[in-house]
C-alpha cells in the first residue's frame, strides 16, 4: 500500500515552470520551524538552567529509587534503628534562700534509635520514624511529579474540549461554559480542599491511600478553567484568520475545524501554560501533604517531610534537625523554579515576535 502511494508521487511529471523553481531551491534552504523554536529556547541561559534542574530532579526521583533498591535493597518505608547515645539535659530554675536565681541541671544518657544525623550510610540521616531521608526525598519527588503531570494532562484535555467548544460556537454555548468557568474560578481553592479532605477522611469506605486521588481530581476540576479561557481566547483570535474562513467555504465539519485547524494552532500557548502549571500543582500537592491531607503517612511526600518541622509541635526539629526538612524545601523550590524557567523559555521561543 505504502509502496503504491510512493509510486504515485514518483511519476515524473514534466512541469512547464518547474525547472526554474527547482534551480532556485538548490540555493535556498531554511531552518525547520521546530529547530527555530529549539534555537530560540536554547539562546536563553535561564531556560537551559531550568531544563538542567528538571532533568536532575527527574533522574533523582525516577532513577534514584531503582538504584537504591537494587544496591541496598530497601524502600521508602524501611525503618533503620541506629542506636546512639544522646545526652539528655533537664534543667530547673529556682530561687535560693539568698534570693538569687539558681539553675539546676540534671544530665543523663539515653539510647535513641531515630533521628540519626547524616552519616556514610544515610547521607541525610533518618527521620523521626527511622526512615532514610535521602531515599524518601526520591520517592516524594516521584509522587509529586507523577501527580502533577496527570493533573496537568487532564486539566489541559478538559480545557481544550470545553474552551474549544465555547470559543468556536460562541453565543449561548459560550455563555454557558464561560459562566461555569467563572463559578469554578471564584471558588477559593484551599479552603474548599480542606473541607473536602476532611469530608473524605470521615467517609469510611475510602481508604486513606486513595484520598490523594480524590483531591487531585478536585484540583483538576479547579484547574481546567484557566486552560479553557486560554483556548477560548486563542480560538477567538484564530477564528478570524482567513484559513478558518477557507475551511468553512470548503464545507469542513465543525468538529474537524476545531480539532484539526484551531487546536493545533493553539498548541504552543497550551504547552507553555501546561509547563508553567506543573509548578503550581507541585506546590498545591506539597501544601496538602504539609497539612497532613495529601499522601498518607508511611508514604513519602515533600510536603509531609517539611511538616515534621511544624513549629506547633515543638521547636526541636526546626532548630536542631535541618537535615530533615531543608532538603525537601530546596527540592520543591528547584522543581517549581525549573518548570517556570522552562515555561518562560518556551513562551519566548514560540512567540513569533521574538523572531530576530
Amino acid at each position: 500500500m505504502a509502496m503504491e502511494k510512493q509510486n504515485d508521487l514518483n511519476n515524473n511529471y514534466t512541469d512547464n515552470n518547474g525547472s526554474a523553481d527547482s534551480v532556485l531551491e538548490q540555493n535556498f534552504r531554511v531552518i525547520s520551524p521546530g529547530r527555530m523554536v529549539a534555537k530560540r529556547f536554547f539562546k536563553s541561559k535561564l531556560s537551559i538552567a531550568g531544563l538542567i534542574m528538571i532533568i536532575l530532579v527527574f533522574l533523582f526521583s525516577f532513577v534514584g529509587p531503582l538504584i537504591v533498591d537494587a544496591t541496598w535493597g530497601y524502600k521508602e518505608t524501611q525503618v533503620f534503628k541506629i542506636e546512639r547515645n544522646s545526652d539528655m539535659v533537664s534543667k530547673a530554675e529556682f530561687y535560693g534562700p539568698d534570693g538569687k536565681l539558681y539553675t539546676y541541671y540534671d544530665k543523663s544518657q539515653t539510647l535513641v534509635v531515630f533521628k540519626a544525623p547524616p552519616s556514610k550510610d544515610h547521607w541525610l540521616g533518618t527521620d523521626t520514624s527511622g526512615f532514610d531521608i535521602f531515599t524518601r526525598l526520591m520517592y516524594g519527588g516521584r509522587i509529586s511529579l507523577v501527580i502533577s503531570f496527570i493533573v496537568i494532562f487532564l486539566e489541559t484535555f478538559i480545557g481544550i474540549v470545553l474552551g474549544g467548544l465555547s470559543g468556536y460556537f460562541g453565543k449561548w454555548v459560550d455563555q454557558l461554559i464561560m459562566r461555569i468557568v467563572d463559578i469554578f474560578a471564584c471558588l477559593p481553592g484551599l479552603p474548599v480542599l480542606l473541607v473536602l479532605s476532611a469530608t473524605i477522611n470521615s467517609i469510611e469506605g475510602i481508604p486513606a491511600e486513595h484520598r490523594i486521588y480524590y483531591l487531585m481530581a478536585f484540583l483538576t476540576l479547579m484547574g481546567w478553567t484557566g486552560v479553557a479561557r486560554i483556548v477560548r481566547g486563542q480560538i477567538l483570535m484564530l477564528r478570524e484568520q482567513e484559513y478558518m474562513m477557507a475551511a468553512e467555504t470548503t464545507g469542513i465539519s465543525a468538529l474537524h475545524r476545531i480539532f484539526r485547524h484551531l487546536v493545533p494552532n493553539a498548541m504552543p500557548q497550551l504547552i507553555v501554560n501546561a509547563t508553567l502549571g506543573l509548578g503550581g500543582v507541585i506546590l498545591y500537592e506539597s501544601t496538602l501533604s504539609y497539612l497532613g491531607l495529601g499522601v498518607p503517612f508511611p508514604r513519602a511526600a515533600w510536603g509531609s517531610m517539611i511538616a515534621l518541622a511544624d513549629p506547633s509541635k515543638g521547636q526541636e526539629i526546626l532548630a536542631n534537625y535541618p537535615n530533615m526538612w531543608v532538603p525537601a524545601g530546596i527540592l520543591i523550590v528547584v522543581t517549581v523554579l525549573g518548570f517556570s524557567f522552562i515555561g518562560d523559555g518556551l513562551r519566548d521561543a514560540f512567540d513569533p515576535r521574538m523572531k530576530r
Partner: protein
Amino acid sequence: MGLIDIFKRKKIEGVDDTMYLTLREERRISKENNKIIRKFEREKNRKNVPEEEYLTQMRDPSNVVEFEDLHTYFFTDVGTVKSVNGVSFDIPQGKIVGVVGESGCGKSVTSLSLMQLVQAPQGQIVKGSIRYQDSNGKCYEITKMPKDKMLKIRGKDIAMIFQEPMTSLNPVFKIGEQMDEVVLLHVEGSTPESAKARSIEMLKLVGIAMPEKVYNSYPHELSGGMRQRVMIAMALSCDPRLIIADEPTTALDVTIQAQILELLRDVKNRINGSIMLITHDLGVIAEMADYVVVMYAGRIIEKGTVREIFHDPKHPYTIGLMRSKPTGETRDNRLYSIKGQVPNPINMPDHCYFYNRCDKAMNVCSRDYPDMVDFSSTHCAACHLYYGEGLQEQNKGKE
C-alpha cells in the same frame, strides 16, 4: 523508533527534497556570523570619531546623495543575505528618483542604509559608500558616520515616509504632540509655541482643511489618506533636503493615491528638495519619477531617465515587467508573464540572477554576472545581450 518517525518529515523517494539545513551547517553559519558581526559592531561603537574620517567629496556637486558600490548584507541564521549587492546611483538636487523592484530586491534596505537604520547586529553595511551633501556644501560619508552625528541628519535633512500610515504614528499621542516633538528636536531655538505654529503651517501645506482640528486629534480618528498627509507634513516640518518615500501609496485607495501623488509632486517643488521614491508600481514611477533605478535580487539591473526606461527598456526583466501589466486590450490573448519565482537572495549563484527566469537566456548567462552596458550617458543595463560574447551568440542565432 516509531516515536521518532512521527516527528520526521515524510519524504518522497528519489526527489532531493532537502529544504532544511542540517544542524552542522547551522552551527557553522552562526559561528561565522558572530565573528563578522562582532568585527563590524566594534568598528561602529568607537567613541569620539574625528570629523575628518567621515568628511568626503561628492563626485558631482549637484547631487544630494550618491550611492557607490553599496553592499548591505544580513547575517541571518540561514546564511548571508546579500540584500544590497553593489548598488551605485545618484540622487540629484530637486529631482525624483524612483526605485522599482519586487519584494526582497533590496530597494527598502538601500534607503535604510542611507538612514543608518539597517537592523543591527544582523544587518551591516559591508562595503561601499553613501555620500550626502548638506545645504552648506559639506559632504558626509554616511557609512562611517558615528551614531550621535547621524541623529542630526536623520529626520531633519533626510525624512522618511513609510508604507503603513497606521503603524508609523503612535496611537497614544495626539497628532500635534508628535509633530511638535520633531520640530522641537531638530529646529534650533524653537519654543513650544513656535513648534505648534510650524506644525499647523505644515498641516495646511499638505492640504488639510482644518489643521487645528487635526492637530488636536488622535491618529485613529483619521482616515488612511489623512494619516499619510500627516506623515508627509511631519517629514516636511524640518525643511528636509531629501524625502525617502517607501511605498507611500501602496496601502491607499486609487483615488486617495492620486491625491497623495499630486501632493508629493507639489511639495517637492515648493521645498526644492529631492525625493527617493520606492515602489513596485510601474505606473506610479512613470508618473512621478525623473530617473528610474530597476533593482533585482540586490543589484541594479537597469537605470536611466524615466523616458529611456519606459520607451526603450533594455533588460529582459524590465521588458517583462512592463509587458506583464494587463493593459486590458483584449481578453483572449494570454498575458505575458515572467516564469518562476522571485528569488530569495541567499547564496546567490555567480551567474546572472535573472538567468532562471529569462526568456533570452544564453550559455554565457550561466557563466558570469553581466557588466553594466551604457546606452547613453544616463541609461545603462546589466545584460549579456548587449556586449561581447552574448552579443555574438545573439547575432548567430538570428542568422
